[in-house]
């Protein structure tokens, strides 16, 4: 009896000791130094990209290809949002930030280096069953102001419009507000969703819904309406005819060096741009 108790104590003691050692061990191991470039030009080390969730899927594919091309490198891609991307670069928690809108004045004051990765169109999406084929910017604005509340007012069937909005601070919303709403604010009666996917899900299931999503994720489950008679296509965005478009930007806190520079160079090269195009964005340099 006594013996068993004793062993039990040793067991507890042992496991606690093990746990504390594990904790100490974890605390002791520090993050490896980032962005090393070997003497021979061999790339190694790791970098982190953080920021816009719209740019994230592009960064992920680019990172994957980059890591295959340069074994021994590690590119971590995180989301967080455009503003987070700027914060992360300024606070040095990420080597490269991604932003899916033009930088704000106060952000430009941080002396960031900008590299335009691609252009992205914002599609105005409705349910495929919706009869409306096109809208003018003015009509679109009035829909989002809450002045037009029935589809019959813009040539559709007699049904209330389900307005879908993104959350305050979203890069897509920022771009939409800037490009469509100007100084006016979106009706607060609108449904708010915090991801492109969630917006799409609602438009797919509600035949009276309208929302704005990245052109890159538009597929045949939703219908992108023409704006001012112009279809939302890559050519129309590069030519500047389609009005609701925005840039995807990589930013760094200072002149990029080492791995960060190699990655940005790769992303802007023909090879990188081809990936970007394949993933659905629009390249400035590559058709």
């Amino acid at each position: 009896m006594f013996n068993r108790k004793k062993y039990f104590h040793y067991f507890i003691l042992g496991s606690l000791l093990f746990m504390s050692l594990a904790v100490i061990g974890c605390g002791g191991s520090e993050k490896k130094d980032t962005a090393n470039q070997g003497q021979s030009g061999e790339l190694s080390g790791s970098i982190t990209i953080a920021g816009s969730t719209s740019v994230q899927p592009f960064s992920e594919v680019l990172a994957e290809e980059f890591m295959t091309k340069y074994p021994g490198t590690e590119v971590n891609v995180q989301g967080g949002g455009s503003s987070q991307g700027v914060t992360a670069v300024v606070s040095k928690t990420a080597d490269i930030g991604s932003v899916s809108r033009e930088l704000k004045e106060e952000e430009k004051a941080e002396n960031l280096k900008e590299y335009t990765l691609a252009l992205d169109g914002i599609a105005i999406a409705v349910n495929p069953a919706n009869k409306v084929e096109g809208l003018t910017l003015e009509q679109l604005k009035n829909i989002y102001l809450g002045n037009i509340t029935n589809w019959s007012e813009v040539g559709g069937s007699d049904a209330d419009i389900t307005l879908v909005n993104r959350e305050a601070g979203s890069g897509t919303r920022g771009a939409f507000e800037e490009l469509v709403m100007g100084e006016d604010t979106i009706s607060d009666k609108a449904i708010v969703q915090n991801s492109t996917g969630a917006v799409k899900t609602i438009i797919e299931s509600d035949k009276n819904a309208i929302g704005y999503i990245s052109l890159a994720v538009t597929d045949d489950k939703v219908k992108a309406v023409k704006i001012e008679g112009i279809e939302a296509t890559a050519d129309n965005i590069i030519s500047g005819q389609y009005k609701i478009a925005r840039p995807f930007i990589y930013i760094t806190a200072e002149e990029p060096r080492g791995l960060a520079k190699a990655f940005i160079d790769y992303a802007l090269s023909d090879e990188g741009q081809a990936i970007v195009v394949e993933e659905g964005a629009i390249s400035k340099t590559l058709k």
Partner: protein
Amino acid sequence: MKKNKLSEGLVEILLRISAGASVLAIIIITVFIFYKGIPLIAKVGIIDFLFNLKWVPTNGSFGIGAMVIGSLAVTFCSLVWSVPLGIMTAILMAEIAPPKLADVLARFVELLAGIPSVVYGFFGLIVIVPFIRNHLGGVGLSVLAGAIVLGIMILPTIINISRDAILAIPKEYKENSLALGATHYQSIFRVILPAASSGIITAIVLGLGRAIGETMAVLMVTGNAAVLPDSLLAPVRTMTSNIVLEMGYAAGDHQAALFATGTVLFIFIVILNLAVSISMKAGTENGN
């Protein structure tokens, strides 16, 4: 013997450190939430922050009034149907059902408690929301959808705690009541339920706490428009969804306002916890 004493002491120290770590975590979180949130509340003014209905954080208008009401509305509506249902189920399981059936029911309730909230949300979005849109009108994403999903989610809490409270009532209560000529149902409703009332109130308050703190499922089915809902079918935003919705992109005052929302939520939860300990204390003083 000496060796034994040494290990005893060592174990005690380690246990103390472990306990201290969890207390420290709570203190750090509390201090952090208040530290981040209070400055903004002070800047906006507590009255304005709590009762102003205008939430345009990118434009400097920080009023969470609509969200406070939204949280309360969704929570209240979910309690309205899940409390009676939960208590009735608890009575069935504790008093009426044969032990085997009660056991099966208990397992189902456990299963219900184990489903992740995002799954409830997804179910709500795919099944309940379209049902409301097609049969009751509106956009489907609504107070009602939130109340239905939340109600299902808090059922296990209400059922389990109410059942335990009923089972804790001494058998003599029921035997005496039956001996005095009361029927089974009279005994349940006139004798057992009143005796178990403090436990049942605890169940309701804990359910309330879970409902008001629930985030993911509510976010997915309520539409999140930051306005006062004018009907059960109107979209609504709760305090929890407000934080999750906008956290990713918020910076500066906007982020502080979300922490401030968290501060308010935290105070709500503390009040609820106090209510639970008071009702539990009342229960023990009643002789349970």
